[in-house]
């Protein structure tokens, strides 16, 4: 008998899918989720409504707790591992959680409409009836409105209060036998994780000669003020938005290097607003496509510092006048 109940529960679900209880844990399926084109389009539609989001073809969106791809997926970690197409041959999927919904998996490459509808609509778990209701309504909605993005919507009704809670169910995937390193096509790394660690990244080589004393004084700062500002810039006390972007960018590049050294094909960065941190135009819309991100950011840092000096001198002048 298994030591833990969740392991027993997993085995019980897998036995329904045809995996005998005697199969070793290492040979059992590992979980993942399927992302469809319509789910990506749903995120792109959100992005298109906001000026500071990227809805272009290079946008990769970071998963959120409530997300068109599926709610709660962030709890399993933020890194998206993208598997090679051949893994689909031993992957099954279903709408909703494999365990809680008691879903009915269908093979990923299946063209059998009945099997696909079964995986989208039916389930055998404790919430069977509400899952089926959601599945049928979603199918009808998708068909009538030609809105394929609605297929995984859920409605939970609290029996005590009657309150409705709308959400999105993930498309749970089970990959038989797990996967090898060579089967990883690439990684989508969450930008928010980079921001958490980038404050310690060194950019002192850039800040060393980013502006001169003469340039600061040309903005009518006194020599004493200019010297103090230079010291603040070099020590990291002064932080401008582009300095932060440079720290984020360098941290991201170090992460990319680490994973690519392990043989991962590509490492891209999933941003909450879909921004492509490799594109120089993300930082400066007038930048050339061929420009290096670091060069664009260096130019911006220099401008931001001189603008800060200008503002400081102007504020001091105003306060003296008043």
């Amino acid at each position, binding site marked *: *008998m*298994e*030591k*833990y*109940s*969740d*392991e*027993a*529960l*997993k085995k019980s*679900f897998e036995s329904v899918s045809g995996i005998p209880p005697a199969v070793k844990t290492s040979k059992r399926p590992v*979980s993942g989720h399927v992302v469809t084109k319509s789910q990506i389009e749903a995120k792109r539609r959100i992005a298109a409504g906001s000026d500071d989001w990227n809805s272009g073809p290079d946008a990769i969106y970071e998963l959120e*707790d409530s997300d068109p791809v599926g*709610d*709660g997926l*962030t*709890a*399993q970690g933020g890194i998206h591992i993208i598997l090679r197409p051949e893994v689909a041959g031993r992957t099954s999927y279903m709408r909703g*959680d*494999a*365990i*809680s919904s008691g879903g009915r998996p269908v093979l990923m490459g299946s063209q059998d409409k009945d099997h696909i509808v079964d995986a989208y609509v039916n389930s055998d778990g*404790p*919430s069977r009836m*509400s899952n089926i209701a959601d599945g049928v309504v979603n199918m009808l909605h998708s068909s009538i409105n030609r809105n394929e993005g609605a297929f995984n919507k859920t409605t*939970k*009704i*609290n*029996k*005590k209060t009657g309150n409705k809670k709308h959400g999105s169910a993930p498309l749970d995937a089970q990959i038989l036998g797990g996967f090898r390193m060579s089967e990883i096509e690439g990684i989508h790394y969450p930008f928010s994780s980079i921001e958490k660690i980038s404050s310690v990244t060194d950019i002192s080589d850039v800040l060393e000669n980013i502006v001169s004393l003469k340039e600061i004084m040309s903005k009518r700062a006194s020599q004493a003020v200019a010297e103090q500002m230079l010291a603040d810039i070099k020590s990291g006390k002064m932080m401008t938005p582009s300095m932060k972007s440079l720290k984020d960018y360098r941290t991201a590049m170090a992460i990319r290097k680490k994973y690519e050294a392990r043989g991962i094909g590509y490492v891209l960065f999933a941003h909450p607003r879909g921004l492509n941190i490799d594109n120089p135009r993300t930082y400066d819309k007038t930048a050339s496509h061929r420009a290096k991100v670091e060069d664009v950011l260096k130019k911006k840092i220099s401008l931001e510092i001189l603008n800060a000096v200008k503002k400081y001198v102007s504020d001091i002048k105003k306060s003296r006048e008043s």
Partner: protein
Amino acid sequence: MKAVLVGSMGDRKLYYILDADIGDDDGAVVTSDGRVIMLNFFSLVTKTTGIKRIMNTPFHKFLWESPDINIKKLWAETFLKKTRPLDKRFTETLITVSQLGSKASKSRSIEKKVKSFLAETNDKQKQYNKFSKLNTKDI
């Protein structure tokens, strides 16, 4: 909400929600920055490796350990079907929280301030009472 800390996943804390109804999210993951992610408890734990399980109360053992044939039905009715309330022998030593994440720490901080204010006020009240008694005696 009644939640019990049942384990951790790295720097994330894992809670089981005792009073969730069937179909409701009965699990919560609280991240290091206080974000609360509500989800289906068993769906998460059957997918995730590296969960450090807390096993120090009868409740935790009942939740995590695979039930033997005698209590298998009881386990399923309690945790999966949610048709049976948690037995008293499991709740007696159980520490539950009513709020999670940054909300909880905010509420703890307010509670601390209220307690400190009350303690201070009580002291003043005591001092005032003592002072009043002295005056009465003097008169």
